[in-house]
């Protein structure tokens, strides 16, 4: 298919869009939610970049995997630009990550329910915290790499991560309590 698209075949190009827009959309949507208004522009960027870079596609990996790699880079760029703007989040005002909560989270909970709840919490958190947590724990970026990408110090990123985890944890505990009360 890649060679037919490179030959500027309109039907192959339509098939390229039909086959690969859905996985890219899903990938980007999950990383940007709740800012879904930004998803379509980013997906279009990814698909145009994939088309523009198709000449360099070697065929070693499936095309879908190669395009999702481009999507990952675009999402990284988005995270970087958003975190550069988040100047207020790394001020050290003495807030500590909670270490001793009333009850440990029961990880034996049904995994699907737990992951959906965690996903919902991420969607409700302030954007900068949510994308920082996704970048670190979904995409496996180390604090040092995040710091380099956003022009911050590693210490500053560690502090932001601690705050983000604390907020996540606090929200988790709140939903846990309200679930028990119902």
């Amino acid at each position, binding site marked *: 298919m890649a060679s037919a698209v490179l030959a*500027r*075949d309109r039907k192959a190009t339509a098939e*390229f869009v039909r086959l690969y827009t859905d996985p890219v*959309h899903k990938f980007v949507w999950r990383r940007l939610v709740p800012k879904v208004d930004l998803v379509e522009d980013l997906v279009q960027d990814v698909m145009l970049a994939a088309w523009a870079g198709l000449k360099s596609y070697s065929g070693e990996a499936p095309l879908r995997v190669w395009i999702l790699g481009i999507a990952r880079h675009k999402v990284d760029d988005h995270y970087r630009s958003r975190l550069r703007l988040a100047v207020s989040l790394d001020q050290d005002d003495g807030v500590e990550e909670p270490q001793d909560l009333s009850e440990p989270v029961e990880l034996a909970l049904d995994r699907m329910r737990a992951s959906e709840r965690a996903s919902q*919490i991420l969607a409700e958190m302030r954007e900068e915290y949510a994308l920082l947590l996704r970048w670190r*724990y*979904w995409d496996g970026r180390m604090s040092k790499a995040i710091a380099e990408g956003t022009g911050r110090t590693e210490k500053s990123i560690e502090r932001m991560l601690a705050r983000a985890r604390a907020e996540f944890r606090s929200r988790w505990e709140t939903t846990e309590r309200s679930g028990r009360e119902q």
Partner: protein
Amino acid sequence: MNNKVQTEELIAAAAESGGAPDAAPTRLKSRIYSALMLAEAAEGKLRDLSETVSAGWNLCVFEQIVQIAPVGSTAKAFNYCRVCHGRLMGENIENPPLYWSCCPYAEFKNG
């Protein structure tokens, strides 16, 4: 297990959750296709419709007319979708009422 590790595991587990729509909006696919066709046409002539058929693809009714018409290769390489109302409907209406076969804007409805 300490609290930090538990929290990290929960956050990581969210990556496995559902919630995202399975399919992108058809309007988005239509806009991407139109943008790619514009970019391809700006780069050079589109593949001749006869070559497209030889490669195993099917043409829409309008493209078929052009393909069998006694016109030169330049006409057969024109981006006809650009002047088709199917494109306008596809870009602006989700699941547009387009039903003729082999039209990309109609086929985006089918996944």
